[in-house]
């Protein structure tokens, strides 16, 4: 039960970070002080739930929230 709560808390925290800017999972894992493998799983869940999405710089892939992604694309296209 506690583990579940902690996981949900972490998930929420991850979403908050992703909403600010696109992250590479390994960098976010360092900031949140969690194992990268654990964070990988959480990010996958967020993507499956449609809350997070990928963004590519062209050579590197980042993860961010859907809203942030749309905001960045609007900025890019000048609309």
């Amino acid at each position, binding site marked *: 039960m506690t583990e579940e709560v902690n996981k949900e808390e972490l998930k929420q925290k991850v979403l908050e970070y992703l909403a600010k800017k696109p992250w*590479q*999972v*390994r960098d976010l894992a360092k900031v949140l002080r969690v194992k*990268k*493998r654990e964070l*990988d799983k959480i990010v*996958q869940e967020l*993507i*499956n739930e*449609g809350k997070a*999405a*990928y*963004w*590519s*710089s*062209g*050579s*590197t*892939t980042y*993860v961010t929230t859907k809203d942030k*992604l749309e905001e*960045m*694309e609007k900025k*890019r296209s000048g609309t």
Partner: protein
Amino acid sequence: MTDVELPETPLLDELEKGPWPSFVKEIKRAAIEQEKAMKAGKKIKLPGAAKGLLKVLELAYKEKRTHWKHGGIVAVVGYGGGVIGRYCDLEDKVPEVWHFHTMRINMPSGWFYQTKALRAICDAWEKWGSGLTNFHGSTGDIILLGTRTEYLQPMANALAYLDKLYGSPAPFDIGGSGSDLRTPSACMGPALCEFACYDTLKACYEFTMRYQNELHRPMWPYKFKIKCSGCPNDCVAAKARSDFAIIGTWKDEIQIDQEAVKEYAKVIDIEKQVVKKCPTGAISWDGKELKIDNRECIRCMHCINVMPKALKPGKERGATILIGGKAPFVDGAIIGWVAIPFIPENELIEKCCEVLEAIWEWWDEEGKFRERVGELIWRKGMDEFLKVINQKADVRMVYAPRNNPFIFWRELNQ
């Protein structure tokens, strides 16, 4: 010849003058076809895309600079790879190609298609993209060149239902890009070649299906490539171009058909073209019988390639695993290092999966950002890597076993 007006492209026109097939000619043809289709009332999602591409290319050659910016939304739900965002910085001058994203499509093992499949891919791409393709890109995928962000998802859907919507014998999926498992590739193996020492097509298919998550969701320090070559000829250049090269080989003796050797002796100089070309001097020929000292054979394949009807790989077949190869454009190429000298054919796929998963866990934990697995081995040492894959050091673990994977036929005749 045609009433379609193409932009003036004096510099690009130069590229049509050589004896080789020209991409310029193909883009021009696509521009003409597209214009004709539009005049005939066909709805085109990217009107004038091929024409726009000609304009941007001409300008790039003239100014000696690119007008492409890359990066951006990946846009296919749940996928982190396979779409390479491309935007043109001339959106005012050439709006036709302002968005010009590339899609990488997972090709079938060994690049075998039915024509129906090819037609279906092209039909879908003419509907949702520029209609321009590149069969195949350097990693092997089918490359679909140029579409807008809003058409990426519909195109991915079209591929997923290509059988139902476009009459393809099978649906298709997006391939890999970014820091993920790139689309595994294989030579045509036993489907076409009698030298194949294992079923490359099956291996490639198994890896692709088993590692879908790794293929579609980038999570590693950098890219990782698997290539399957059926024999040491290494037709997919696995040793030079993949992090994990599976190269077919054999343990026992080269099979010799002495009668067929005698037939070859009527048309080639066996002494000059085979015996003297053996890098370890393992072959002898007395005009009646060809002998090979198999302990000296380094699997260069030369004798087998010259006399394929007379010589065949041995019967005890399997593969060698080479690790850490890469071939970047500019600098830093590494030839794979032998990590597992021999895995029997019947254990090959399972053993590879076991080793792959151990490598990925280690590399993901220890690798620096944009560090390929070969570079990590250089940094940490082969000794540590062998512990990761649970192998003991062995004299057969040759570093860069062959610098040049190609035979130059001109040299053969000297």
